[in-house]
């Protein structure tokens, strides 16, 4: 399946509108899923379900959003900060996410800010093409 970025964007937008109950004009590429669109942890799974259906793809857990394999590992998180090894693992696991800003202050509480609408677009684009 080959879709243009606009087509992907429209489907992602519909997905987020349905999953999060937001208005479609709130879904901009820069919108952060948690901070701006109010997503909570269960919503990430809902989003994954809907994206799988919308794009007819399989999304392995841990790939699109960070999972327990990093966030639950005490070697990768120390004193509420993601360690260098943790960052390396996240970067490898999630090439569609820009970790450069986060790396300056890898506070675990800020990890939600990394997940923007554009991260989903990047992930889907990579997956389809």
């Amino acid at each position, binding site marked *: 399946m080959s879709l243009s970025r606009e087509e992907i964007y429209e489907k992602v937008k519909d997905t987020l509108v*349905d*999953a999060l*109950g937001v208005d479609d004009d709130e879904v901009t590429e820069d919108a952060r899923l948690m901070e701006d669109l109010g997503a909570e942890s*269960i*919503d990430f*799974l*809902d989003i994954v*379900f809907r994206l799988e*259906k919308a794009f007819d793809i399989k999304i392995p*857990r841990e790939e699109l959003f960070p999972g*327990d394999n990093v*966030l*639950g590992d005490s070697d990768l998180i120390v004193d509420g900060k993601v360690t260098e090894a943790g960052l390396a693992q996240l970067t490898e696991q999630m090439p569609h996410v820009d970790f450069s800003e986060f790396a300056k202050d890898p506070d675990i509480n800020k990890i939600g800010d990394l997940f923007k609408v554009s991260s989903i677009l990047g992930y889907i684009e990579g997956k389809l093409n």
Partner: protein
Amino acid sequence: MRWIWIDKFIEFESGKRAVAIKNISLAEEHLHDHFPGFPVMPASLIIEAMAQTGGILVGEAKDYSEKVILAKITRATFHDLALPGDQLKLEASVENIADEAATIKGTVYCNDRVLGEIQMMFSHIDQNMGGLEFPEENFVFNEQFMSMLKIYRPDTSSNHT
């Protein structure tokens, strides 16, 4: 005792869909206060009836091995009021069921008209909570609740109709 808020199942297709009945009686105390002189079943309790219908559908799909907890009401729209004496027919269809969670789409009928549409999500909490541990005993589908479920089975309940 678990709080049972639906009366019986009339259809049950494992892992796919279930239809349950909820009879609304003026004897239910919540109707006395909601509202005084104008009893209306609160939408939240219609959602609860759907959550029980969908939760059992999702639980049965995995032989009640998971602890199924309502995690999210994605959308709930109501087109009419549910009044004492009404019979609600709650139809839940599985949209997605995975290791960690499941989603259902629910339609509530009253007198063959659509009264409400509800989408919800259930979590299999043992699979999902980042290492947080829950008691081993399945407190969702405990023994008492399972024995209640037996009377819901259409093959046995139909003997009484």
